């Protein structure tokens, strides 16, 4: 993640849960943050990376980047919008 210029305020790992808990866990983590803060969400390839970014977008948050960790996981960088 060193290549990207984001100030990560918090991290959440959702690789240990399955749909629909993946999104719920990310959502709960976002709720802890303040408007404008940035969360890094680590998720598995496959269904999570196909669906979680869109669900977070539909909640109104701003997606900045999806980073391929090259180990079967991805990290989604999300800026929280609203309280």
């Amino acid at each position, binding site marked *: 993640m060193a290549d990207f210029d984001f100030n990560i305020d918090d991290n959440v790992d959702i690789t240990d849960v399955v749909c629909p808990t993946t999104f719920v866990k990310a959502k709960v983590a976002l709720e802890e943050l303040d408007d404008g803060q940035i969360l890094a969400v680590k998720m598995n*390839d496959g269904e999570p990376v*196909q669906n979680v970014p869109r669900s977070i*977008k539909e909640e109104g948050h*701003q997606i900045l*980047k999806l980073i391929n960790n090259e180990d079967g996981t*991805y990290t989604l960088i999300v800026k929280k919008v609203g309280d």
Partner: protein
Amino acid sequence: MAVDYATLKKGGFMRQKQKNNFSLRLRVVGGNLTAVQLAKIAEVAEKFGDGHVHLTSRQSVEIPFIKLDDIDEVKAALAEGGVEPGVCGPRVRTVTACQGEAICPSGCIDTYALAKELDERYFARELPHKFKFGITGCQNNCLKAEENDLGIKGGIKVKWRESDCINCGVCEKACRTNAIEIKDGKIIVDESKCNFCGRCYKACPTEAWDTVHGYIVSFGGLFGNSISKGEALIPFIEDKEKLMAVCDAAIEFFAENANPGERFKFTLDRVGKDKFTKKILEVYNG
């Protein structure tokens, strides 16, 4: 007076095992009923039936145990709640639909509006055999479009809009058909792989896609005594006028070519799918 079962059946009165009892099929469009309609249906089922209703496999409601002598009274009572009998037999049947884009986040088209339009255009139209329309909003296919004589599936045709793209990479992963490749910050869509699901556009944080919401139409599906999947014989349809012209042409072809009691699939098999495809492509290109 002899009972005219054909007329009764046309009006949605399905003969039951129990003599002089009918299961009354109601006209439901796109699977939606208002609370007022539901209340009236409940009242009629209590008063004239045995207090229960049956939900059919194609989104209709039937009220069983209606007595032959009560038919006029039942029809009048239902009319007060904006409910009317449906149809059975050799004609255009209930137009079914999923909730579509008006309700469902996955929907690509307004399925209910389209169901109403098709219902107004064709409902109960007499044909050589039954003819079913089904409308599903997206590739998830909750409404099983290809089971129908004519199935309509919503889709979104996408074109990348570079100026709004933040290069986040979400679309490449959202795509389930591997149609998207990101190369040197450019997004390349392989149109031969795109199935118009619209997931790239829906997942995109900036919606950096120009989109056309349209229709994938399949012909000749059936799922009864014989089972066959409807086939999409023509390309993606980009506007509703063209969709309606295609539906008109398909129904005309069926009316002109089908033998009595022959489903659309078997007409296509007998007369020739090529002949039908040629005709429908003329309309598509016309």
